[in-house]
């Protein structure tokens, strides 16, 4: 067991933290609404190599493992950066595993932006695909076939939504289609990619929770009521302490899930689901409490906490009802938490 990051991982964390802090301050996040995509920021991220970070080095990508991807996802979450880094990473890893070289090369060159439909397509459309409004290639499971479908007219207009996310319906008959895999192999590839998305989105929600906690703590350290700092009240302190505790737990679980993907642990899928569920609850409770401690200001658009509050709820929702996901867990439990 080793819970310390390597020097390289710490350096990556420091570099990305600086990048997102500088390039994705709250005004950038606001300016990117309602679409939830900043093309200039994405271009800068691609130039840094973040677009193809998940593609192996011998194919021209960054060769990052999932722990490194989770670091990137956490820092993206902290700043709510309006770029589809997680979707691109997961889709690109899938392309690298199953697609013709041309599709991979286009992703490496930054000419193409791919995303993943989390749910199998019903009829001729994949519904509310994350990053579906800005990606020009969607990877989707339809009738036990894993398809890469070209999407025309991207970026599309925003579909107004709670989290200002670039979600969109993706028609599957409009563009050029490549079959990546068929039958059980297709189903397995798609399932693994969805687990990877859950794991990285869990890490992003840890980032949301950590920043939402800081915003709340900073506020209660300067706001006074009844002639004292509201941060001195136990009812406030204890909720923040619970949130700080859940945050550390969520972070440990997010990196354990990422590590499990790196070492191909059979429990990687279960851990990814657990990570997404726990991080989602932690992020939402933390952002919600933090907003509440702002009093009326928390409710205004002017304060940043609302940006976190909306996304903490919205980001995991594209994966479906979390209570159904909890109910799935015990069916896969036997030994799932070992290791």
């Amino acid at each position, binding site marked *: 067991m080793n*819970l310390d*990051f390597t020097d390289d991982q710490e350096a990556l964390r420091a570099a990305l933290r600086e990048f997102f802090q500088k390039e994705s301050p709250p005004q950038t996040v606001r300016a990117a609404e309602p679409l939830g995509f900043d093309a200039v920021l994405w271009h800068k991220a691609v130039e840094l190599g973040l677009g193809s970070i998940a593609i192996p080095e011998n194919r021209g990508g960054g060769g990052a493992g999932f722990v490194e991807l989770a670091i990137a996802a956490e820092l993206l979450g902290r700043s709510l950066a309006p770029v589809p880094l997680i979707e691109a990473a997961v889709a690109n890893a899938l392309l690298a595993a199953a697609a013709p070289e041309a599709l991979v090369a286009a992703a490496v060159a930054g000419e193409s932006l791919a995303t993943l439909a989390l749910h199998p397509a019903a009829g001729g459309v994949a519904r509310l695909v994350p990053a579906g409004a800005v990606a020009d290639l969607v990877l989707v499971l339809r009738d036990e076939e894993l398809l890469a479908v070209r999407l025309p007219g991207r970026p599309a207009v925003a579909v107004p939504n709670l989290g200002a996310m670039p979600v969109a319906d993706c028609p599957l008959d409009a563009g050029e289609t490549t079959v990546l895999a068929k039958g059980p192999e297709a189903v397995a590839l798609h399932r693994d990619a969805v687990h990877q998305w859950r794991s990285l989105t869990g890490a992003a929600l840890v980032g949301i929770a950590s920043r939402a906690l800081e915003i709340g703590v900073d506020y209660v350290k300067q706001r006074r009521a009844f002639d004292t700092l509201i941060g001195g009240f136990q009812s406030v*302190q204890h909720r*923040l302490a619970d949130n700080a*505790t859940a945050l*550390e737990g969520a972070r*440990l679980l997010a990196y354990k899930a990422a590590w499990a993907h790196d070492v191909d642990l059979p429990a990687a899928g279960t851990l990814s689901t657990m990570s997404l569920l726990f991080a989602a609850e932690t992020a939402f409770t933390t952002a919600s409490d933090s907003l509440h401690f702002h009093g009326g200001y928390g409710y205004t658009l002017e304060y940043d906490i609302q940006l976190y509050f909306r996304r903490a709820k919205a980001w995991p929702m594209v994966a479906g009802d979390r209570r159904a996901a909890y109910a*799935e867990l015990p069916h896969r439990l036997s030994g799932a*938490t070992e290791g």
Partner: protein
Amino acid sequence: MTVDFWEADELAAHRATARAWAEANIEPHWAEEQHRTGCHQTMELHARLARDGILAAGWPAEYGGSDVDPAFAQAIFDECAERDLHVDGWTTTSMVLHTIAHTGTEAQKHEYIPAALRGEILIALGYSEPDSGSDAAAAKTTAVRDGDTWVINGQKMFTSTAQVCSHIFVLTRTNPDVPKHKGLSLFLVPTSAPGYDLQPIHTLGGQVTNATFFTDVRVPGSALIGEPDGGWNVMRVALIYERGVSSPSRIEKTLAEDLASWAREARRPDGTTVLDDPLVAERIGRIAVDEEVGRLLGRWTNWQAAKGGIPGVEGSMRKLFFTEAEQRHFSDALDILGAEGLLAPEAPGAPAGGAFEHGFRAAVVTTVYGGTSEILRDIIAQRHLGLPRNRPGG
């Protein structure tokens, strides 16, 4: 090396020998006896642990230490836990011995440590009183100097395993005229001293703890641990040993897996399994996630401690999360069992032998002892988040 969450069993090399020791030395009826008497310390077991140098593992030879590998000793204690045998009296004794090693005189170290490692001294904690628990420094029990001796008067509460202990580690007020943290002293009081008495206190989980009474109890000056009026400095050390040390590396059985295996087999009148019910499955899923998080917070605490840190905040988070979650889990487990969840271990046909019903009652105390959840939240809010102190009396 990158992050690695693999939990190797560090005691793997000792498991087989520890199991053999346990099979040869642990009587099967002891666990039932602890359950029946409510005393979480079995003296016959203690004598065997002492005889084989297991208690003395890891201590320097000059204080009676043995050459038994501490990892082997830990594996033995895991075997005890596996057999539902508590060693609470040794746990508190061990805390006090470490405290003496840090704060006692050389003469005291030689007087108490070797005897305790031989199993001749067993020490219960006497901090809490009828009117003070979390606020231990508010203790009212007095110790007054009389020549070469001290005279102790007062009452302690929740003096667990005092039934079988030779000594109580008693927090007393030796100076009422100074701020409360500055007038405290700690004494090792023999339970054989005239004027000492105890009354049993029966608790929800079946454990029988005690109220202990001190009426003109005389102890020699050598029973004072630390400086007179310097008791709070001793307490700081003692509390680190109480809160900081978390359980060993045993791979825990999880409640979620126990419940899931039961629910996979148990059938409803309509023939479906209990696990087919999404209301049940969702709750077991939540328990599984909480348990995973609790485990990770524990590993993280141990990791910080192994690196040489004092995991005050981490240990507080671990205990807060783990114990609060445990109480929710037992409550959910009883609900999931339905009406049968009511059945106590004594009832015929109780699910899992009534283990969940008993667990529900026993879990109540976990958010209280060794730092209440409220104290832990204060620690996290103030030391970790930097929020202002809010307790006027410290």
